[in-house]
């Protein structure tokens, strides 16, 4: 059958072409997706369940597609940024300063916890253990989370070093004070280990108590608090287009508005975001140098 093309059809064609070439791209924004890396947390399940609507919100606000992925570990996120596979990454403080040092990535936003952009690490023990102060832990065991964790190793470890109880550094984490230190692989595992009396103490984020069932929480007590830890953050690749970066920041800050707060609950469970700069992480850099994560 021969196709019959009429003048009327041609007019339709012209309209379609104009729409395709000019109108739709203008509606849609840039066609290159923004790649967002999410680093694993103690409960990535919530992240997986909840992050999609938040990403959709950001896409809508930015007018740009967002492709997000969860990395195996902090290193993978940093490598993804270094190689340009990730434009943005959500990160804890210590991996951020290492990423900044190695790739020039820049922090753009900090998380808020009850309105504050910092938190603490605690040393938890069982109330019935008889351990009242840090000195009582000499010759005993402690569970941390991971060697590269801020609140799950560097800061709680620093509590003992600062007090003059242990030598510092990743090479000798027992530091002549503990009989044995463990890296439990997660905040929850560390907390459960101290609750179950498999270790004598846990050095973890202050929020870790919430990972235990309510009925178990009263069995534990924090006997020491770390220095202030700048909050987990959002980092941009060094050479990310400044306009894209600005649009992303603007979209993220809209999450703080009451109608959009529902998305935050699943995005690392934070209370909001605030603009921060590299200077906010100076104290992390200092500690990272002190304990051999960065060269002095």
């Amino acid at each position, binding site marked *: 059958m021969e196709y*019959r*093309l*009429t*003048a*009327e059809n*041609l007019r339709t*064609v*012209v309209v*379609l*072409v104009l*729409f*395709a*070439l000019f109108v*739709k791209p203008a509606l*849609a*924004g*840039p*066609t290159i*997706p923004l790649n967002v890396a999410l680093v694993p947390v103690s*409960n*990535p*399940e919530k992240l997986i369940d909840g*992050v999609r609507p938040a*990403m959709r919100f950001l*896409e809508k606000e930015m*007018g*740009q*597609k967002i*492709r997000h*992925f*969860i990395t*195996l*570990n902090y*290193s993978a996120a*940093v*490598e993804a940024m*270094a190689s340009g596979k990730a434009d943005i990454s959500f990160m804890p403080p210590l*991996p951020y300063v*290492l*990423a900044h040092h*190695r790739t020039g990535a820049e922090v753009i936003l900090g998380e808020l916890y*009850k309105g504050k952009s910092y938190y603490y690490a605690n040393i938890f023990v069982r109330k019935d253990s008889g351990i009242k102060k840090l000195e009582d832990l000499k010759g005993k065991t402690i*569970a941390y989370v991971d*060697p*590269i964790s801020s609140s799950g190793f560097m800061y709680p470890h620093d509590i003992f070093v600062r007090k003059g109880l242990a030598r510092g550094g*990743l090479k000798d984490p027992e530091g002549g004070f503990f009989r044995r230190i*463990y*890296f*439990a*692989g*997660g905040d929850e*595992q560390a907390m*459960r280990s101290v609750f*179950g*009396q*498999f270790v004598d103490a846990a050095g973890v984020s202050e929020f870790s108590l*919430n*990972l235990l069932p*309510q009925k178990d929480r009263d069995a534990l007590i924090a006997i020491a608090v770390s220095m202030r830890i700048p909050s987990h953050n959002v980092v941009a690749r060094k050479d990310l287009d400044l306009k894209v970066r600005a649009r992303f920041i603007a979209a993220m800050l809209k999450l703080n508005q009451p109608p959009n707060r529902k998305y935050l609950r699943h995005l690392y469970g934070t209370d909001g975001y605030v603009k921060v700069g590299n200077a906010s992480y100076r104290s992390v850099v200092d500690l990272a140098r002190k304990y051999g*994560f960065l060269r002095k």
Partner: protein
Amino acid sequence: MKILGFHQRKIFGACVMAFVLSLSAGPFSGPGPVYAHIVPPENFHPVAESYRRVTFVLNVNPVRWSLVWRDMDRIAESIIMVSAYAANKFRTDLAALRRNVRQETKGGSVPSSPEKREKRRRAVFSIATRTVASLIISHLQKVGSSESQNSVKVHLSVGRKIFRAFADTLPYLDPKEWKRMQIAWLEAFSNIGTPGVMGVGARPMNVQQIRARTAPITAYLSKFLVRFQAGPARRLAPRPIGSPTYVKMAKIPWSLPPGSNINKQLPRPRQLLGMAERGANEGDTGLIALGDMAFDSSEIFGEPARSLGINCNVCHNKGVTNPGFFILGLSRLKGGMDVSTNFFAPHANNGIFDHFDIPDNRGIRFTAPYGRNGRTASLREFVRNVIVLEFNGPEPDPMLVDGIVAYMNEFEFVPNPLLNSDGTLSPKKVGAIVRRGEKIFKRKFPQMMGGMSCASCHIPSDHFLDRKRHNIGSAKGFASGSFDGAYDTPTLLSAKFSAPYFHDGQLPTLRAVNDWFNRRFKLGLSKREMSDLTAYVEAIAGGVEPYETTLNTLEAELEEFKFFLSTYEFLKEKGKKELIAITLKTVATELQAHKWDLQNPKHMPILNKMELLIREAVELHRNGKTKEVDAKIAIYRGLYRKNVEVLR
């Protein structure tokens, strides 16, 4: 019409293609989000989850075999990942058992007996336990043989996660070995190392150490659980009988299986207590306060409800319902359960699985008889039976039952401005659709139960019920022609907020209920008539402000604890020592549970102090030191008064 030439046609084709491509290659196209390499959370591995569910369900009588097979199939899927041969053997063994169970259940070809049922239950549990133990060993063996760091980490993580299948039993059955194995896991994980960040902070993996550290775990499982056979104990558990440190008389606390939910709904239903709405001073209503406390108290129940924190308020949240309530093995649907299995009160097991939807208690003083099948005329008797026969509680003090009944009698329906007090519509407040629906509601249908209308049972002038039982065909009887399918007519007042519907919650919406009647009795109502009828039912079943506006419940809870404690003087005067003990324990337990809702953690010491005061009062009361109890309660009240603002 002008016909275009060849070139023009080519342009047309190209343009259409350009348009199509521009749509498909837009910014929102392309692959979806990538979820790769997720570091596993400390939730349950599917095998651990399934094993714990299977254990729970097999311990319930009657066993719901469909749930057991579903989880056993899930376990089989995980075995395939490790060994196709083992998976095949597992499936073959299971298939034989499955066949036996099918033949021996109702309607099957082989007669059943309690002994046979017991045998099957034990056989399935034994297979499940052996399989889980073998799976952990397989993963640990793969750790030993693996070259890749990631592979080692994955197998170690999976092994540890499956090991949690035993975390609610083994710590009690063999605490010494459990601790030793937990430390072994910690040692192994500490040898995993880390890649650091681009090499910085990296620590190498030590596979030799991991292998050495996990060896005791493998040895223990191989020795005591890989050839496990369930023994004679009624409660099935992975008992490592051969272990020298096995605690034969261990008391294993009950825990609910994964997938269960006994959290109360949020936002909470707005509770309307008649006396409070009429302005009564809550401090003057001692008996009602006692009932309120008891309604919130697991202390009035026996085990296992008590230690699981189950109380009236868990199911009848604020006297209403709890639509999310679900206990796997006991519930068929969310919002209900079978309360007559062996789980909560073994002595009162009726031996059949009969799931009931949790009824709404609003306006309960007008809705006798009680129970979905209207088996009890008196609310007092019903309450006593719930305590003793459903939740294994001790025979309650008569004053306690009086209190609960007094409290429940204050439950009001949600106010509904669309209705007059006689149940007729307020004509100015409703539209034509609702008025048309009302006519259908009152229309008699010859084909419906001898010419009845909806209003015949749901009598508008009598709270939309008739206090009778009818067999409308919503339940299957035990035999054709049996008369066991009658259920009590429920009120329609406030019903919009207590979905799902029918005695077993089989229908999700009021519209579905109307559709069911239309089909069942061939009423022949058109789509429009159905919409009209539903609009009417929703109008009469509705009301204003059915839920609280805040999600933060601490303030309301603390006020409630104050109300609970207001009974103290009254109970002391009546010499009710046991009820004082229940009150104090309940306040302490509730404080412990609710203090975590505090918005500003810096005030936690106040709540801790309040909790401590009540716990001390419990001890002092036990020792008969009344004056000291008085003093503690006075300090508690003072502390609360002083800090009530900051605790908000």
